[in-house]
């Protein structure tokens, strides 16, 4: 736990605002394989994404 702050209070306020990393930058060797799949996903979602989301209703479980 060497990296723990020893101060009695959090200094979240001083920390830089966390930002989501940009996925495009992280894509490396897998790009080509992903591209084909992405094109397919994109195509399939042009048609009925909203209706699909609306009709996906489950009953609560455990």
């Amino acid at each position, binding site marked *: 736990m060497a990296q*723990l702050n020893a101060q009695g209070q959090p200094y979240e306020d001083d920390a830089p605002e966390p930002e989501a990393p940009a996925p495009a930058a992280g894509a490396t060797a897998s790009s080509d394989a992903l591209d084909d799949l992405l094109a397919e996903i994109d195509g399939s979602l042009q048609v009925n*994404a909203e209706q699909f989301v609306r009709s*996906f209703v489950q009953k609560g479980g455990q």
Partner: protein
Amino acid sequence: MRVVGIETEYGIVDPAEPRANPILLSSRLVTACRAWAGERTSRWDYGGEDPLQDQRGFRRSRMGASADLLTDAAEFDATAGRVTLRRRRGSWEDPAHLNAVLANGARFYVDHAHPEYSGPEVTGARDAVIWDRAGDAIALAAAVRYAEDEDGAVHLYKNNVDGKGASYGTHENFLVARAVAFDDLARRLTPHLVTRQVYTGAGRVGLGQFGEEPGFQLSQRADYMEAEVGLETTLRRPIVNTRDEPHATRDKYRRLHVIIGDANLFDVATFLKIGTTSLVLAAIEAEDERLDELELAHPVEAVQEVSRDVSLRRRIVLASGETATALEVQRALLEICRTYATDAGDAAVLARWEGVLERLGADLFSAAREVEWVAKLQLLGRLRSRHASETRPDGLPWDDARLAAADLQWSRLGDGWATRLADAGQVERLATDDEVAAAATRAPQDTRARLRGGIVAARPDLVDAAGWSTVVLDRETDHGHLEVVHLDEPGAARHPLLDALIDG
């Protein structure tokens, strides 16, 4: 070797009729599962469950319990002998609670309004992966059979939220020494359950129970955790569940029921979920006081803080007043757990644990082949970028229906985007398809699941019903009663009577 098991409630949809009754769909799916299994299934033995027993020592009064806790039959037989007799009496299956005990030792059944696969007892993280994926294979085979036998089809989703407020669970079970005081167990385990999300999260589009806020978070279940400890599993869900129903010798064991976890389609996520938690439990059983330094100031809030921080840099407050990132807490736990590795399986868990933490800390997307939420964020992030324009440089906003749809479709069994990603070689597998296929019809050989699955496979004609700790035999005898074989030791894979019948 710790005995563990995973239960998965699947989302179920009739694509042609979104308003179809999910209990009816689930019941038909279990019927289809039985058909797929041929004659090699059994009914469930409701004889000995006691879901009203609380780990904290008291027993809920039946009057005070909500109806969904009453999963046991009227009787509770605490007698734990090797073989006892049970009087024959009428017992008929309720279609709304249909069960199939399978040759691989699992239970496939209707739980509330979902089909559930409760995997057989296994003894290590890798076996947990194999028999968890076997459950997906069985559910998928049942769905194929459903389409053949019924008028219509069902799609199954291995996720935990519908985006409309409903959540359904993926539960882990760990056999723990009864000697550990439950309060210590809950207190010392909580920091792990809160921070392990960094590699167990399946990723989710939408923040809040209804997905009312746009955004992406690590975990499916985080927004549904509303208490630190408690008995409930369907409302005010606790980080540590107190149900005391060991399905084993009560004075020797607890069964820790973990309900905070996500359903995972990535092998490494399942492997670490089970492997790391099992090692932390070993540290707790040893009363390792180093764990106390990691206690959190506000665990329930921290679950959501960790889940909503894709940067993995946010600091959460510890009870000591210090702060740490989730990764730092995990690294500290890893160091503590090195003391408790006892075999090659544990060593593999430690190595993977260390590597994944390292990759998450250095370059998030270098963990995309192992960590499910990272892979989902990568895929959805690039989907967003495809629609970037001058007026919308970030591409699709997080509340675009296409992202919500892709998130749901990610988890569809058979052809979901996670499966397609794996088919494209983008997901690291820890078990082969052949191992998984074999595990769909064969039980683990090193736990009592071997006996349950073995007798169902070899002599289903003799089995009246089976449960976690019982096999009820119905055969010609002088006494004329049913014979209840008690399997109260989860790690005991042999029993003279059942072995004789199996080897027949």
